[in-house]
């Protein structure tokens, strides 16, 4: 099994306050890896290290190394790194433009001007995100008029427009109802054939349904990682067991 991301001794801090310490693990290609752990344990911080999003925060520091398919991410130009590792946020955040412009903003930024190419790209990615049939009649409709679940799928489709290898999702369903969450779970499962997916989730049943691999963080440290079967159903560490049985939030 290929490794998409190899993380070595990763630490992060905000204003000198440590948030992540000495995390080393591997994220396999074409799998869904779920990152779980109690609130404030550093899940979002971990995710933000992977695409170097942390450095947009002036007070934040990170150390250690992250390799993307064997290449040190610190040596990859930031723009390229962000294209290779896409990110979807907790709150659905489409740009307040039309669906079409949401989908074409980044491709146009990277130089695709040809209208036919753009149209094809929009259709392809919206189909991948399972949104195409719902919006194809009016791609010029404002993205803000979509439902929350549709907006989140649009954000996933938008992240796919720059052809990433890895997709990072930070609690993508926590602002959505059960039905919309189910649609997104199904979507992620179908996307793993083409993409490597890392998802932070608070929802243990959701992690059990979709994850192949699981990572358990506790107080900024890696407690346990491995196949989802093992980590989520037969954890070896006490913290994991207590977390899964609902001892802490």
């Amino acid at each position, binding site marked *: 099994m290929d490794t998409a991301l190899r993380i070595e001794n990763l630490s992060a801090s905000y204003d000198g306050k440590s948030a992540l310490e000495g995390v080393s693990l591997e994220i396999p290609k074409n799998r869904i890896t779920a990152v779980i752990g109690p609130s404030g344990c550093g899940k979002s911080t971990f995710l933000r290290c992977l695409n170097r999003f942390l450095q947009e925060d002036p007070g934040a520091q990170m150390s250690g190394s992250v390799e993307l398919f064997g290449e040190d991410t610190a040596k990859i130009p930031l723009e390229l790194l962000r294209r290779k590792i896409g990110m979807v946020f907790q709150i659905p955040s489409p*740009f*307040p433009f039309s669906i079409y412009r949401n989908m074409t903003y980044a491709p146009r930024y990277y130089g695709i001007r040809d209208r036919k190419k753009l149209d094809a790209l929009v259709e392809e990615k919206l189909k991948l995100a399972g949104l195409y049939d719902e919006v194809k009649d009016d791609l010029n409709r404002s993205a803000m008029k979509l439902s929350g679940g549709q907006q989140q799928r649009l954000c996933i489709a938008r992240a796919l427009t720059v052809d990433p290898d890895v997709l990072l999702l930070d609690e993508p369903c926590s602002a959505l109802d059960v039905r919309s969450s189910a649609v997104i779970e199904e979507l992620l499962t179908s996307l793993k054939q083409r993409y490597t997916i890392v998802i932070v989730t608070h929802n243990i049943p959701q992690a059990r349904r979709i994850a192949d691999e699981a990572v358990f963080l506790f107080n900024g440290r890696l407690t346990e990682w491995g196949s989802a079967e093992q980590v989520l159903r037969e954890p070896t560490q006490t913290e994991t067991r207590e977390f899964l049985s609902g001892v802490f939030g």
Partner: protein
Amino acid sequence: MAKTANRFFMLLIGSLTVLAILSLAFVIWFVAKEALPLFREVSPAAFFLGTRWMPVDFGNGMSFGIFNFIMGTLAVSLTGMILALLVGLGASLYLSCAATQRVRTLLYPVIDLLAGIPSVVYGFVGLMVLKPVFIRAGVKTGLCVLAAGIVLAVMLLPYLISASSETMLKARARCLPPAMALGISRWDAAAGIVLPASARNILMSAGLAVGRAMGETMAVMMVMGNANLFPKLLGKGESIAALIALEMGTAVADSTHYHALYAAGFALMILLFVINLGISALRSRLLRRGGI
């Protein structure tokens, strides 16, 4: 109990609203009533399109043409708005997308302070600072439309910056992270996403600012030169507000002059109304294209 309180509250709100509308209607009615008698003596065409303003007969007869004043009002407001928007949008983009929270907390009180300075002070500072500059630049008296536009822009800035940086801050919180996660640079995202995403709200504050610009009297009067001329950037001009402020005190009550000044005020209201209508049409077009 709660129901009665609720009904009472609704009634209170309702009557206050009616009161507000009534007082506005009264002002319009009053100005119109005082303006109308003018048109028994002067034709609307001569009033709106005439360029000779001679409210007292010195032997050549009286005339009441406010065309140059309308143009003066438009010219100075437009100059002021363009300058204020250029600088204001740049400043708001910086404040919302580039400045750190510390810089913001430092600058906002200063901006609010600027908004509270009375307009005479702005006019006075404009007179002291701009007049010598324009004299050196070759404008004879140093008083001109551009100078007034600059003073006006400085006055509009605090309001425009605080209103538009507030909407931009919201748009930035929402749009900047996903844009940067796509590898788009901060400045491209600021100009290409945050700015257009805030356009509708910026237009709304611009609409309010236009009202302030066109009605602003004191500061404009002090630096625009106040001559009945067709406005040129480096020439003198006079705004309707200045005309009214300068002459209302000396106009004999119920004279043609008096009615003409009211009619000029009425013209200013209509002008504002038309401009705001245009702005809201623009806004609703933007809304259909999808804004926040």
